[in-house]
């Protein structure tokens, strides 16, 4: 049973697409294992959609909610100290949209000249029924869909390597300082007591491990930092995804406007 979940703020940033790739993969993989967080992200997506792609009658509805809607109705969010956000564009760009008729028509023609995606071709990617797995130390582990582009692509992922009980596959996520890896600890293995310099995200994908603070099961999503000191060990062996030094301060954009997050979450 999953006991450790990402924070609502993180899930919101995920729905907004505002985290680094490694963290997005961890959050997506957690959601594939955790219906509760998946439902939250779905909810946030809907709220964000209503904010960025409002229906004509939603401006007033939105006006009843918190920080976000203030930005919608005022066209800016200066009062929160954040530079004018996305919504400021809406009204001005809406009107200039029609004034570029010619280029819009050619864009429209170009799009509608594109053939519909065939069901077969699409199901190969979007509705893939092919399972995703990785093999390490003679075991095969299934992986969440977020890993699809990485697994078996030598340009994006190293092969498994390591000594003793611990093996690692590094994923090339190009996230600046943040480094993402799949980590395998064989049965009976232990990682020597250590602390963390920066933030570390650990998502347990298979098996179990425990440390001084408790026991963890598949799907558990942990955030640890310099204050934590621990000695993880596993009886049955486990596969984790880790992102170290992940910036947990999200990039500019909507999530910054959500302090307090308020309306968007509840």
């Amino acid at each position, binding site marked *: 049973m*999953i006991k450790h979940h990402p924070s609502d703020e993180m899930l919101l940033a995920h729905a907004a*697409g505002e985290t680094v790739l490694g963290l997005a*993969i961890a959050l997506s993989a957690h959601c594939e294992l955790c219906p509760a967080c998946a439902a939250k992200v779905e909810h946030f997506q809907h709220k964000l*959609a209503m904010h960025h*792609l409002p229906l004509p009658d939603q401006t007033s509805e939105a006006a009843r909610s918190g920080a976000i809607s203030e930005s919608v109705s005022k066209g800016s969010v200066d009062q929160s100290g954040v530079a004018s956000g996305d919504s400021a*564009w809406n009204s001005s*760009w809406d009107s200039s949209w029609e004034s570029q008729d010619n280029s819009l028509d050619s864009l429209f023609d170009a799009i509608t000249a594109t053939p519909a995606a065939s069901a077969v071709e699409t199901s190969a990617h*979007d509705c893939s029924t092919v399972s995703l797995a990785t093999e390490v130390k003679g075991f095969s582990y299934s992986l969440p869909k977020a890993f699809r582009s990485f697994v078996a692509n030598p340009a994006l992922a190293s092969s498994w390597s390591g000594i003793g009980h611990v093996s690692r596959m590094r994923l090339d996520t190009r996230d600046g300082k943040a480094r993402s890896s799949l980590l395998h600890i064989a049965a009976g293995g232990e990682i020597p007591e250590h602390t963390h310099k920066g933030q570390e995200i650990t998502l347990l994908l298979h098996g179990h491990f425990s440390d001084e603070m408790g026991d963890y099961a598949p799907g558990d999503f942990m955030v640890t930092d310099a204050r934590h000191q621990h000695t993880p060990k596993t009886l049955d062996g486990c596969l984790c995804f880790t992102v170290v030094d992940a910036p947990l301060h999200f990039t500019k954009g909507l999530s910054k406007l959500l302090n307090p997050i308020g309306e968007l979450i509840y």
Partner: protein
Amino acid sequence: MQIFRQNQHGSHYDRSSSPINIKGMQDSKPDISEETLRHWLVAVANHRDKSAFRALFDHFGPKVRSFGMSRLAQQGLAMDLVQETLTTVWTKAHLFDTDRGNVSTWVYAIMRNQCFDMLRRVQHNREDAFGDDIWPLFDVDTHAGDHGDHKLDALLNQYLSKLPKLQREVVLGIYLQELSQQELADRLGVPLGTIKSRLRLGLEKLKSLLEKHHD
């Protein structure tokens, strides 16, 4: 075999019997509801209807561009985002389940995924695309199993997609994720009895759908 359900709902949008005055909607301050968007999308899905698509294009285009401007900060890139997003709407409309999904939310997801990849492309000058792996655009995908018979899977997925969400969740949990009923109850935070009854109702519905198919 009809895999995608939208095709069965052609009657929702019948231009000859219930014309939608698209032009009129654009002239005055438009009265666009989620229902309107859905009708347009179904018309695109079933008939490749260009005037319905034009209405979607004019509704979403400027908003997608605004979003692109705020994220990508370049007009050229913002228009690329418009093109990428609306091309996906045009080419994949028939894959979207209009009975279950919300059109604006789907378009938002397409836009967000594209924008995520475009930002990385600008930063790294590489053509990688990860957005659709991280946030799958089609729900069926989330629950696709890894079993051998793809045809049967497609059919089962189609039927599973007709179950109410709560029942679907339980059926998938038990049969695809191979959780025990107790594990599922714990995960979803509901009593064991609820799991049992959702499972029973879900299986009954599936059975009736399969029987209908084999008739």
